[in-house]
């Protein structure tokens, strides 16, 4: 299958390891991964903060760059959600019919990583090995916009050596919310504090999620408190094999 990797601007800049993990994983499963160099950003931050005119060129670029692939994979629930649910809203707002058509073509080919693996590629055991205690936080957009359900957990449960522990109040938002963490930073901090308390209560070594933005928020708090709990993107755990020495 010819799969394009949409790395998302945030992962591209801050977490290239996640992109490398997705690539390694998919190639291990026998697929070809391509990286369209013209890609940039899904426009989520601008869209969610109310800057619609600024979002338009990003929507346009996305539809152009990712046209014609069998599937596009994004290691981010919120960016996949943005493309699937909101690009058409932007196109419609500017009355751009050609763009709307292009968006309608591309949007259904875009998958969050766990969706691609389970629904499109039909695997839950990806042959990974990660002998650590891990707890999983389902990010809001994966949970409620994409409805990925238990797909990530099914993938994680199949990982060799993993000790997967349940996170209390897992489906409560961590308080990141993009620019919310800046605009309402005090409320955000209060939500973060509760999330961290729950993560710490599991005794996990690693917190796993399918979105590096939420992980940066929670992990940043855990790091500041010197809890010693690390964060791992779902892709990185699924890409890890027995040969790895982590």
């Amino acid at each position, binding site marked *: 299958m010819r799969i394009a990797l949409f790395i998302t601007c945030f992962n591209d800049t801050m977490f290239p390891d996640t992109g490398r993990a997705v690539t390694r994983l998919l190639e291990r499963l026998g697929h070809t991964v391509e990286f369209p160099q013209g890609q940039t950003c899904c426009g989520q931050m601008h869209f969610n903060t109310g800057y619609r005119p600024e979002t338009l*060129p990003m929507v346009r670029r996305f539809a152009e760059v990712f046209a014609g692939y069998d599937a596009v994979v994004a290691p981010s629930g919120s960016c996949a959600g943005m493309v699937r649910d909101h690009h058409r809203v932007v196109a419609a707002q500017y009355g751009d019919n050609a763009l709307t058509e292009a968006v309608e073509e591309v949007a259904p080919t875009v998958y969050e990583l766990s969706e691609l693996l389970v629904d499109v590629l039909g695997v839950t055991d990806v042959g990974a090995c990660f002998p650590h205690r891990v707890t999983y936080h389902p990010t809001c957009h994966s949970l409620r916009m994409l409805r990925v359900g238990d797909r990530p957990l099914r993938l994680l449960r199949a990982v060799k050596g993993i000790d997967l522990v349940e996170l209390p109040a897992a489906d409560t938002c961590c308080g990141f919310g993009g620019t919310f963490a800046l605009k309402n930073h*005090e409320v955000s901090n209060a939500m973060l504090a509760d999330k961290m308390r729950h993560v710490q209560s599991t005794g996990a070594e690693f917190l796993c999620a399918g979105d590096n933005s939420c992980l940066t928020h929670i992990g940043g708090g855990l790091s500041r408190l010197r809890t010693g709990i690390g964060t791992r993107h779902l892709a990185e755990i699924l890409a890890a094999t027995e040969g790895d020495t982590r």
Partner: protein
Amino acid sequence: MSGADNVVWLGTPAFPEAARGALADTRLRANLRRATGTIRDKRLKAAAELHDWEELRERAAAVKRRTLRHLDHHLLRLEKAVTAAGGTVHWAADAADANRIVTYLVKATGEREVVKVKSMATQEIGLNEALADAGIRAYETDLAELIVQLGGDRPSHILVPAIHRGRSEIREIFLREMGEWGSPAPEGLGDDPRELAEAARLHLREKFLRCKVAVSGANFAAADTGTVAVVESEGNGRMCLTLPDTLITVMGIEKVLPSFADLDVFLQLLPRSSTGERMNPYTSLWTGVTEGDGPTDFHLVLLDNGRTATLADDVGRQALACIRCSACLNVCPVYERTGGHAYGSVYPGPIGAVLTPQLVGVENAASLPFASTLCGACYDACPVKINIPEVLVHLRAEAVEAQRRGRFLPTVEALAMKATGLVLSSPTRLAAAQWLAALGARLVARDGRIGALPGPLARWTGTRDTPAPPRESLRAWWRRSKAVKGTQGHASAEEEAAGDRP
């Protein structure tokens, strides 16, 4: 009267500042967490009991959508039916209008006191204050509303207005204030909930027997029969609806339903969504006036107050489908931390964040659409399927546009969004920015992490470490390692060139 005057009490600071006090109040946060947590679990259980819950939601949403599309038509039908049944219908364009009408109606009876059934609409327009200005005393009879009124307070929740109060606080309020308003609290009053409820009952009974005029809201009104419905759990509402001679109902125009039969689905959804009960203990229905039974004079005040303007917005209008069940408040992680007062309106929580800005004009409540992480829990909980996150981002765009129009100089945020927008719409500019960020980070990072920073970034870095951007972005890595090996032959020149097209 327009804009922020449409609802009382928007004079509060913007949401982030208003939330600060609540966040610091540990007792408040504990009260909120306990209360919302309990109702949340009860609601889930009550909803799970019905096998056709999702279907019911779909039906309710469809009825509301359909009704809102032809609202004028159904309101005229309602007026006709109410009039035919012996009631009188009044149309109020805004809060001042409605207050004037009600004040006039009360004065015409010669009375100086009214008992009230809990009503969001009358709070929205500040009716009690308007009546007080005209020398008329309004007594709240809902237990929680009574606590709020006696405490000189504002409601903090749609359904449980005194959710922010603990029982010892309530006891203090009763002891201090009840005497001022009527029968005093019994001596030696304890803080046992039953004792408190009994004190309220005694205090209220005297008023029910004395007052000749009642003011209520309405949960629903059926256009075909002219029947108005109020649901409640204490029975105090029923006393107000049956004992007095004159009944004045103030109802938002969006509450109309096409037919009596439509009540079926809503009376199933509302109690389960709001209190997690299967049925409301009291459901009162009345149609005009009936000789020898209940009030002899019935007035229905139909309140617009920003609703037709809301109706004109095809994304935002779905907020008018709200049946005020408060399920969205109880699942909202932001509401759980801040309580209702931070929202500066009688409509707090997620629904307040989308309804209030529309009723008063988004420029008058511009911080409210941003008072959400867009986690979507509210949408999942809403029995009439209002897509609150969708309306939130829609209103954010309107708030930003209103700001662009209103200012000569763009805000810092607008400049930042413009700049990042330029970077993020071009791969070459993005690559350059990544290179710069990595360079900058190496100057401030320690052990690969960035600690507290000064300036605007302090809001983020005050409580969290940030990983330093790595030297090589994924796109750079890909170009170096993959493209050279030929697996990505076409990922270069022409795409790069295409990359800079705006």
